[in-house]
């Protein structure tokens, strides 16, 4: 966050290496991230999560997460291949109907009550063949006729809807096709498509230690990786820096350990930890990076207004928190009733009048937005409770204030003083939140998050004060042998673990997945060890990227451990003894759909960014004739994409069928637009040639969070589509801006 200042000395004076291009300012990791297509979605997802986490208590719990992940996974599993197809320049409007169609085909083929009675061992592969055939048909027809895929797949869409209803009625006389659970082979296939992870069955008492350890390790790796990517390495070693760094690290670890042994937060130990971290970072920078050129001092334009704006926003946030009633769950409604209606009407009139004037060229086109804002105020005011409005206003203003202060920090060199003031402001905010809030969530969790944020900002400021910016892109990391060793050790671990699970009597699917997971974790661990070793003991300049990777990986593993495992104490706490003396424990489960979604998102973005096929997808979507003339098999690429979508539709159909065992004829119809919307929210260009598979996955997460979060927050769910529509528009605008920026920056 220290890197996003636009006024930083962008152009390097003296290129360090011979390979440097002096016209090219090196962009730090955060600037690079800002030009990725999915950045809008990523920030949006963070914002949406924060919003619902603040306004509803169940949303942030493991149960709430499982709930929105489930919705997101069903959507994202399809949205990722739909996004790839969209990047390839085509649409598939039949994708939604196809999910239901494969489920119905499966049941009609397998069930012996109303269907062909083939049993599932034959019906499952046949339904896959059916799905792939439709994908192939779509792709071939689009390619052979050169008709827009919009028209061709619209035809397939109606054919599928009609066929689903027609065949369902023909064979069962109902629109509900049922009898899957009585078909032969149900148990085996249900073990795959109906599988789910029951959290209560996985007790791990050391979980909290693992989770905390992974987060600390991940955070450290991320911080050091960012520093490594941003600052220039020094040639000689600096013993003073090493000693300072070690002392700081010891202090931080001691302080943290003492904090953990305390029940409540302890100010002295907290200060010890914070100071230790800062001293550690300072030592690291002294030991490792060049000293900066101290001649560039002074304040650049806009500093005063940013700084003042930040202070005003923080103060306003606190005033609002003090004035508004935290307990009142009544409707905000201060503009409800007739004043609200009058304002609404005035706003609408203004839009009309100003719109006409703008169209005539009398006023700039921005003016009608005033009317829209006037309409929005009363509309929103009766939707939101006073409680929620207070939280939103407070949170929004506080975030705005911190952002403004951070920008101010970037405009003053050396900026360490202002950055430290910003950190101090956040610390004050944190203690304010703690003293004032009722709920444990805000008092403990938000408090800790704010303190961590302040610490990160302060650490960034210290680092920037002590280190010179990198002027050239770092060399690629030289981790070849570590990756290879990691893969081999991981593969061995996977096989050993899977076999031991099989011997223990677990079923094959579970053993395979668990084995793969263990192997992956072991391989990741070896890679992490290798990266740490290379960072500390070699002069490899490329470790920055690897550090960022393992930082993110460790943090994700930490979150996964928290979501997937339960501690004994936690289990005891949630179980209640019913009146009939039966112990009832609310169960949290993650369906296999979540796993499928994660695999699709990961493999999809790997394919798009790193493989030849990915390049071909971008090429056929960007300029099909050019791609073809240079030897890219355009027709085959597109047909494979259509078949990928229909294959994903088959997986979705199987998951639906085994979850419900009886399928309505209209299941999935209309979802195709959701897939497309989610893909667009994720930064994919509607006209093809640009986008991100990971972005589509993040888009699906946003959709899941909003559609479930509205329920958790007990808002009126009638407005859900309004929120989603607004989200779509905002997302498109942000993505447009990001793409323009990405092209300009280069």
């Amino acid at each position, binding site marked *: 966050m220290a890197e996003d200042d636009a006024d930083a000395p962008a152009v390097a004076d003296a290129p360090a290496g011979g390979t440097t291009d002096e016209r090219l300012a090196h962009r730090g990791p955060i600037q690079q991230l800002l030009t990725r297509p999915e950045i809008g979605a990523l920030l949006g997802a963070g914002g949406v999560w924060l919003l619902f986490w603040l306004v509803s208590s169940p949303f942030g719990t493991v149960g709430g997460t499982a709930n929105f992940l489930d919705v997101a996974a069903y959507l994202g599993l399809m949205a990722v291949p739909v996004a790839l197809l969209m990047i390839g320049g085509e649409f598939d409007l039949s994708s939604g109907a196809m999910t239901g169609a494969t489920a119905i085909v499966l049941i009609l083929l397998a069930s012996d009550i109303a269907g062909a009675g083939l049993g599932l061992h034959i019906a499952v592969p046949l339904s896959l063949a059916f799905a792939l055939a439709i994908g192939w048909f779509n792709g071939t027809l689009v390619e052979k006729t050169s008709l827009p895929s919009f028209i061709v797949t619209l035809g397939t869409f109606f054919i599928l809807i009609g066929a689903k209803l027609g065949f369902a009625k023909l064979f069962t006389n109902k629109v509900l096709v049922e009898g899957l659970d009585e078909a032969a082979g149900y148990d085996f296939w249900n073990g795959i498509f109906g599988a789910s992870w029951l959290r209560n069955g996985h007790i791990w008492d050391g979980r909290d230690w693992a989770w905390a350890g992974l987060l600390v390790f991940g955070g450290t790796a991320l911080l050091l990786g960012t520093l490594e990517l941003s600052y220039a390495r020094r040639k000689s070693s600096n013993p003073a820096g090493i000693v300072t760094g070690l002392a700081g690290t010891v202090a931080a670890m001691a302080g943290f350990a003492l904090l953990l042994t305390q029940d409540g937060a302890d100010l002295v130990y907290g200060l010890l930890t914070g100071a230790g971290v800062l001293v550690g970072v300072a030592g690291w920078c002294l030991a490792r990076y060049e000293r900066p050129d101290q001649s560039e001092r002074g304040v650049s334009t806009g500093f005063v207004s940013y700084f003042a704006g930040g202070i005003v926003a923080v103060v306003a946030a606190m005033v609002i928190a003090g004035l508004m009633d935290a307990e009142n769950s009544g409707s905000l409604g201060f503009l409800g009733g007739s004043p609200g209606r009058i304002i609404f009407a005035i706003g609408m009139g203004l839009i009309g009048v100003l719109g006409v004037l703008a169209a005539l060229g009398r006023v700039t086109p921005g003016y009608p937005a005033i009317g829209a804002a006037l309409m929005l105020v009363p509309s929103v005011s009766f939707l939101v409770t006073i409680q929620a409005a207070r939280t939103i206003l407070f949170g929004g203003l506080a975030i705005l204030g911190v952002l403004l202060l951070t920008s101010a920090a970037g405009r003053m060199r050396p900026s360490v003083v202002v950055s430290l003031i910003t950190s101090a402001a956040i610390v004050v905010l944190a203690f304010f939140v703690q003293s004032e809030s009722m709920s444990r969530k805000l008092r403990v969790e938000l408090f800790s998050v704010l303190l961590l944020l302040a610490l990160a900002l302060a650490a960034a400021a210290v680092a920037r004060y002590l280190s010179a910016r990198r002027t050239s892109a770092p060399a690629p990391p030289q981790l070849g042998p570590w990756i290879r060793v990691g893969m081999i050790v991981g593969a061995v671990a996977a096989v050993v673990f899977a076999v031991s699970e099989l011997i223990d009597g677990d079923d094959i699917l579970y053993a395979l997945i668990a084995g793969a997971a263990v192997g992956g974790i072991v391989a990741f661990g070896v890679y992490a060890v290798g990266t740490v070793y290379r960072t500390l003991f070699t002069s490899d300049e490329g470790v920055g990227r690897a550090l960022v990777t393992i930082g993110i990986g460790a943090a994700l593993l930490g979150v996964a451990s928290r979501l997937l495992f339960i501690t004994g104490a936690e289990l005891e706490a949630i179980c209640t003894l019913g009146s009939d003396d039966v112990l009832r424990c609310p169960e949290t489960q993650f369906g296999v759909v979540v796993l499928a979604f994660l695999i699709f998102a990961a493999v999809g973005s790997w394919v798009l960014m790193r493989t030849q096929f990915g390049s071909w997808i*971008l090429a056929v979507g960007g300029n099909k004739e050019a791609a073809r*003339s240079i030897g890219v098999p355009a027709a085959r690429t597109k047909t494979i994409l259509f078949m990928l979508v229909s294959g994903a539709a088959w997986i979705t159909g199987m998951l639906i069928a085994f979850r419900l065992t009886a399928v309505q004829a209209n299941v999935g119809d209309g979802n195709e637009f959701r897939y497309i919307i989610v893909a667009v929210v994720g930064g994919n260009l509607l006209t093809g*040639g640009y986008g991100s598979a990971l972005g589509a996955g993040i888009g699906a997460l946003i959709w899941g969070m909003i559609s479930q979060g509205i329920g958790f927050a007990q808002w009126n769910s009638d407005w859900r589509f309004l929120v989603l529509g607004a989200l779509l528009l905002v997302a498109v605008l942000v993505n447009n801006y990001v793409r323009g920026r990405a092209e300009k920056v280069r």
Partner: protein
Amino acid sequence: MSTDFLELRNISKFYGNIIALTGVSTTVNPGEVTCVLGDNGAGKSTFIKILAGVHQHDEGELLLEGEEVKFNSPREALARGIATVYQDLAMVPLMSVWRNFFLGAEPKTGMWPFRQIDIDGAKRIAKEEMAKMGIDIRDTEQPVGTLSGGERQSVAIARASYFGARVLILDEPTSALGVKQSGVVLRRIVEARDQGLAVIFITHNPNHAYPVGDRFVILQRGRSLGNWAKEELSQGELTQLMAGGAELEELQHELAQAGTS
């Protein structure tokens, strides 16, 4: 008798009853630039497409190193070392320079199923090859759409020569460019020739063709007006032939008269 590298003998192409190209003969040799000139609709595009394997000729013979060939697809022509740089550049504007450079022939690393593009290697090679052409690409991650017209042509030419092209067909490379940029591209043509490539340079501008060409073929309304070596033709003659000879003379005459009266 030494065989020419690529020889066309009376090549003709018909679309139904339309005669697109008839009786075109010429030779193409390494280290030489063969210019194909013609006005709009003269059959230049058909000529390229036959050599590039997009279309197949209906009459005549196409000899590659003395052996008669007929290319059924662009891939086949490419495999035999005939690379075409199209007027619309055959580039994907939103894709980065290195992706465009290696499109269709990405260098790969790793074991199946983990085979992926060797991105760092691809970026390095793209930068080096561009440097050889005298173009210093700032950042190979830059989308091709942000390059200037001359730079884009250079990427296309560098790509073709890197992938072992022996014959380089350039379709109107200077037509959309300004004077300065055209000069840059003409220099690239000379450089490619000096590297030992056979270059076929399609243009309608005799002023661009004459300085770099070793051999000239002039097409008019699908017919070949002839096939000359450079020493058989002066620039003025070339311009005259190109503009339809007699017609231009008549026009000059009329203009001169209008000037004197």
